[in-house]
């Protein structure tokens, strides 16, 4: 039985009203700590959305980034120690700055290109933890924040090194708040595909590359130079990104006839994403110009307005075709290019 301050969101020792006041009016650090206290309780009850009640977390004016970088100090408690807040000065730690800058570029991409205000469309804060565990060869989205390892220095470098990794992780958040694709089999591969697409587009826009200039590689620079590989994945040529005795060969298929049936990796979500990745590459290079303008636009509208949690490849392809027709006209060059892009990977719309 809770004898402290009872509140719709649970029991607090410090009354939530006081925490709210701090969250609304304190210094950046005080607000951060108040937020963490409220968040910790909310998390226990799976009530992240409850926090939007507080003015500090209400939808902010479009264009306002709220980045926070934490250091897990090689442990696994999240989020870890606060090391850089929004507009705070550069850290001496390169991975902190990469997480900060990469989140900013991803935010700017979604805002400038699609008029989307952060992951949830409502100015959601962008939290990243670096130095997670020791020699951790991974980066992941935990449903609320990004988490980055340092790599073992043998096979992998630190995971903040690649801008598309950061864009990839944040896009999992976008998908979570929109289509909600489940992380299994074909819907899961589409989920992975969306993260590769928009992760790549964030990088392409940052580098001012046209579709033809882009390298279409995911995770370039993550491998150390001991590894025979250019990147983790290639959207342009799935299956060719790496081939090394230590880690094996890039297993991605580039055609539906080579779809991989497996129980590993949630049904091969990182593997079969190669098929739609290749289709997107086909479309973007066929249309020319910057890949985010038309191809990215078709994909963004499809993701945010059409795709459902269990959408399969075939249906997704049809949705992109329909959206292209809506945006550019039936039988337009753009719509025909979508059809051809999918045909090349063995999917008929």
């Amino acid at each position: 039985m809770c004898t402290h301050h009872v509140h719709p969101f649970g029991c607090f020792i410090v009354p939530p009203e006081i925490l709210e006041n701090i969250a609304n009016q304190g210094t950046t650090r005080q607000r951060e700590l108040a937020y963490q206290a409220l968040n910790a309780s909310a998390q226990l009850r799976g009530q992240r959305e409850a926090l939007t009640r507080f003015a500090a977390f209400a939808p902010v004016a479009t264009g306002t980034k709220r980045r926070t970088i934490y250091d897990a100090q090689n442990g696994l408690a999240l989020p870890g120690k606060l090391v850089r807040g929004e507009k705070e000065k550069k850290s001496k730690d390169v991975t902190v700055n990469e997480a900060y800058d990469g989140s900013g570029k991803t935010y700017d991409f979604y805002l400038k290109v699609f008029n989307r205000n952060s992951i949830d469309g409502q100015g959601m804060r962008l939290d990243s933890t670096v130095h997670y565990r020791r020699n951790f060869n991974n980066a992941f989205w935990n449903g609320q924040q990004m988490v980055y390892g340092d790599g073992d220095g043998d096979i992998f470098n630190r995971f903040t090194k690649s801008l598309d990794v950061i864009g990839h992780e944040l896009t999992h958040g976008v998908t979570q708040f929109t289509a909600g694709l489940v992380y299994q089999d074909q819907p899961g591969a589409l989920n992975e595909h969306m993260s590769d697409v928009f992760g790549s587009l964030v990088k392409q826009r940052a580098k001012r590359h046209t579709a033809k200039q882009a390298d279409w590689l995911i995770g370039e620079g993550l491998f150390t130079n001991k590894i025979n590989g250019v990147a983790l994945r290639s959207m342009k040529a799935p299956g060719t990104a790496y081939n090394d005795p230590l880690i094996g060969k890039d297993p991605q298929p580039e055609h539906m006839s080579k779809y991989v049936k497996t129980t590993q990796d949630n049904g091969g979500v990182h593997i079969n994403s190669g098929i739609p990745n290749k289709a997107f590459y086909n479309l973007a290079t066929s249309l020319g110009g910057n890949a985010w303008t038309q191809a990215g636009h078709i994909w963004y509208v499809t993701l945010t307005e059409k795709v459902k949690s269990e959408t399969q490849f075939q249906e997704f392809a049809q949705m992109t075709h329909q959206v292209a027709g809506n945006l550019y006209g039936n039988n337009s060059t753009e719509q025909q290019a979508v059809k051809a892009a999918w045909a090349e990977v063995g999917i008929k719309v």
Partner: protein
Amino acid sequence: MRISFERSGGFANISSTVDIDTSTLPASKAKQVQKLLEKARFFDQPTKAQRSLQARDEHQYQIKVTDGAQTHTIETSDTALSSDLANLIEWLEKEAAAKRKR
């Protein structure tokens, strides 16, 4: 004691596997892993850890240990690890990496 370890998934989706028979290990190493298993309370761990429905790109881990008559298999992932289980996994990943190099 036989230990079978498999890691899959993750951003890179590069798997890590190793099968260990502790009777073939130097005594100090066998002791090491025994201690790690005990500290992680391996045989008390649930066969399927609480799954995070929203986590993306996390590793999946499967560990099977046979000790005499006792066999136990657990499935877990990055967001479900205790630090003791993480230490066990790090040890197993090192063994997997060492085996690959040979």
